[in-house]
């Protein structure tokens, strides 16, 4: 657990855990591409897991994945069922794993609330759209997805 908290470095560690997940469960690291800062909330892909954070930083971190990537991941995991419910379930599982790791890493510096998973056009009522978001696209087996960091001022 961290004894001091440097927000940027800690968030970078968090992003690293996403790569670790895909490497461990999916067999290959994703390729992270150049990020953008977005004034409007970007359109999300088919399934998105939202991870609310509070403490030294307030806002949420979201992992947005397309259906084709989720189906590929389910297939890689030996899952026969790959419908929308299974995809949403997988996003939930991924974000649950990430938040669990984050809690262990950040401790009390950054509290990570129970994640929320939603389909493309839905945005959880519990969350607030940020004034500016950090969109980090990545590719896994050639499929585009992205991570969204949305902090409040």
């Amino acid at each position, binding site marked *: 657990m961290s004894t001091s908290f440097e927000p940027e470095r800690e968030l970078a560690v968090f992003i690293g855990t996403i790569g670790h997940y895909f490497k461990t469960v999916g067999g290959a690291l994703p390729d992270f591409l150049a990020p953008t800062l977005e004034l409007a909330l970007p359109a999300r892909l088919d399934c998105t897991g939202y991870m609310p954070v509070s403490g030294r930083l307030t806002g949420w971190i979201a992992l947005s994945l397309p259906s084709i990537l989720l189906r590929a991941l389910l297939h890689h995991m030996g899952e*026969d069922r790959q419908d929308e419910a299974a995809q949403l379930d997988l996003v939930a599982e991924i974000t649950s794993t990430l938040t669990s790791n984050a*809690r262990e890493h950040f401790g009390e510096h950054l509290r990570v609330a129970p994640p929320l998973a939603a389909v493309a056009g*839905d945005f959880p009522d519990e969350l607030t759209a940020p004034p500016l978001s950090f969109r980090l696209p990545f590719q896994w087996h050639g499929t585009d997805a992205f991570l969204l960091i949305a902090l409040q001022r």
Partner: protein
Amino acid sequence: MKTSAPTPLADRYIRCEDFATRIEGVELAPDVWAVFAQLAQSHTAAEIAQQLKLDVESVSAAIRRLVRRKLVRKHVLAWRDYAATAAPLPPPATTTTFEAPSAPASAPVASTTSAAAPYAPSRSVPPFYVTSAPSAPAPIARSPVISLRIVPTAASPRPAPAMSLRIEASRPLASSASPVTKTPADGLRLRPVLDAIGAKAGGGIAGQLLVYRVFLQIPTELMQAAGLHSLSLVDDHFTLRHPALRAALAETARRHAGVDIETLAAA
């Protein structure tokens, strides 16, 4: 709104009582069987990961596969069964004030509460989903994942990028600031400024996140007025010409990253 909460890491799992009727002919990876072997008794994914010295991600995926094959189930008890085996509960607290969960976020997780209108899960919902009210206060900190299907009454706003700033190719930022090239007469080249800010956090993703935090402090209206709707950190050509935005950036860069952009610009 439909909600559900799988908690593959926090929940405890155990073998199904009738697993023997389904196990014949099942072929799984050795690691998955190793996880199955642990589940003669109730365990969480984290506990098994620790015992087997595996990644919790792998154990979670293994449990998921075992659940799908109905070899393993989430370990839940009726209150009557729990009460018959559990130690006596402490006396009730005298305070009537509700206190939000204050246990460490990483504390072990117990069962979730459900205070929402009853929700009947669809047949396709995985067996470890439970219903949960997202706003209901849980008595103990836990980590449920709540799946939402919200009726799309209002479409999510979509970005309408008015301009794109290409600061650098699709690779991490350099760890040191780039020298500022001659500033156009009425503008400020942004790339060296972003590099200088990023360098304060060691470059790479951390540096890009510091750039984000600096821009986060700038009033939204200023960025809108400057037509700055989407700022891509992969372009080398953007010149900042909006005086108020430049002033705001100078202030936030100085305050939050210790970078004096006017000195950079004058260099």
